[in-house]
């Protein structure tokens, strides 16, 4: 038998840890100018966001941890931002990764990204605390249509 406890909601914590990891490296960059961690974590963040936006999948395919979005990841991403907002953040992260613009501009971009990932983490924590998975609305129509 499987459990139906808080362990089933762990994916939300994973999203929270993922977002926190990016926030940590963004803050470090903003405050010290050190982009070592940022360079290490941004590609994963970008791949994850792009996959959630449906833009592209990582070449690692489904084996990559965040490349193929889980239900929990999709749900949380969808709740915090419209596709347009996510695209905007993708652009911000790409600029940071490619080191486009002056240090001042990049710091401003990083602050924008902190706000996004902070909100994402916040939502993941809320979903962990109060998970719900309502039945899809169209499910009963499966029979009516035939």
């Amino acid at each position, binding site marked *: *038998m*499987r*459990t*139906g*406890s*808080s*362990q*089933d909601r*762990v*994916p939300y*914590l*994973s999203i*929270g*840890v*993922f977002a*926190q*990891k990016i*926030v*940590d490296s963004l*803050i470090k960059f903003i*405050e010290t100018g050190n982009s070592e961690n940022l360079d290490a*974590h941004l590609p994963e963040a970008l791949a994850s966001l792009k996959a959630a936006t449906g833009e592209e999948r990582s070449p690692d395919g*489904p*084996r*990559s*941890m965040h490349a*193929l979005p*889980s*239900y929990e990841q999709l749900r949380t991403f969808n709740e915090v931002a419209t596709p347009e907002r996510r695209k905007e953040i993708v652009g911000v992260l790409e600029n940071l990764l490619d080191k486009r613009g002056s240090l001042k501009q990049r710091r401003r971009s990083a602050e924008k990204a*902190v706000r996004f990932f*902070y909100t994402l*983490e*916040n939502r993941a*924590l809320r979903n*962990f*605390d109060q998970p719900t998975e309502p*039945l*899809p609305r*169209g*499910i*009963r*129509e*499966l*029979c009516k*249509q*035939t």
Partner: protein
Amino acid sequence: MQTDLDGLLHDAASLRGFILAIVQFCEEHERSQTYLDSTYDFLGYVSRLGNRTVEHLQALIDEASRFKRWVREYRQKLVLIKRCWALLHSFVKPAADAHTLRIPVAFLQLLEDEIRTIPQFTKSRIVPLLSSELNYFQHRHTRLKRLGNELRSIIPNAEPFPEGLGFIAIPYSQGSSVFANVLIYHEAAHFVAEELSRRSDLSSYVAEELSTSIYESLKMAFGHSFENASERTRSWCSRLLARWCEEIYCDLFAIHLVGPAFTFAAVELFDLMGLLSEEEEAVDFSDSHPADACRFKEHVRILKSFGWWPSLVSLRTEQAKLVAKLAGIDEGEYSFSSQEEEFGSRLIKAFLRVRSRIRTLVKGIVGRDRSERKEFVTYNSTIRQYLNHGVVPSTVVFRNRLDFPTPIAVINAAFFFYLQGLPGLSDRLTTSRSAMGIKRRSELQAKVQMWTMKALEDHRLLRDQQERV
């Protein structure tokens, strides 16, 4: 007035106290109890992770003192760490409770040995958890393992989660029972499915391997409307069928390894819980499990193919009759009453079409029938005779020489003996007055289980001695 930084310090100090209480709890139990190696590994991991986390909390406060404008972000990080520790917290107590005086050690070691014969599982270990639920659970270790490893990205110097650990919860009242604990084989199958999964998104090997069959079967059941339905709807149906498939896979996996003892253990537990009292309930599928009638139909099918069925029929026990009755229920009677009738019936039809793929899948993993029917047939009457006289059947005199029946043969023979009402033993040790006393019968049942457990322990000892020689 408290500043934001004071608030952060307060939260961090409180979190430190919470984590250190867990660390202390682990360390105290490691010192005062004896555990399986797997449990020591887990409790040790939790202690070390706790110490690393506490070190990090101080570093976090120092950093926040320098970069005050991010206090809100640091505070949320504390919440996240606390949630992760709350999850670990839920594992620690049941693991610490499962010391060797409370769990069927020999039985769990036998299970681990059997799982380790499957390629890719040579280093697998089971951490038993004592549960307050009267049921057996496999906890999704992949999630915990993954989270543990992910925590390393936000807690510097945290070590990786120990490899190969699985978590199975056992009802605290069943620690000394051999027969009820046969159900652990089903949970071990969940563990195997999770470990075999190629994906890291908490999928199961069963769902992955059967996804195409499930999809095709749903398409057949619902026609074009399935393909036209939303991704979410299709995914909901597929996941439901995958869950049902996994339960059948686990049952078949267990029977491959331990034979009819698993079927009887399931009957015992289900009956105890009153689940099989009404035929209506026996044919009803739930969100998580196929109907019991459907499960037992699969049990009977595989037991027949392994040649066990005649032995079961000859038992003439209530349990065997119940299994036969449930397996004989027409599949048209199956229902999924939590959904609308037509919708439920089509889902069931789609599921029934996938069953043959499940059977193939189990065979692919386990390799062959390992339920040792021939061994059982050879030693059954001797083992019964030994139990009848209160002798542990680990070493038996068979055809004038010393012989050692395998543990699986002992478990099945003892289970058969137990279900038949302990014939002979009961007559020998009861008077006409005490024959109908439940106390006496209960004591004898416990003794049979104790002798069986002892036989498993002896077998391990003998095997280890042989290996040393």
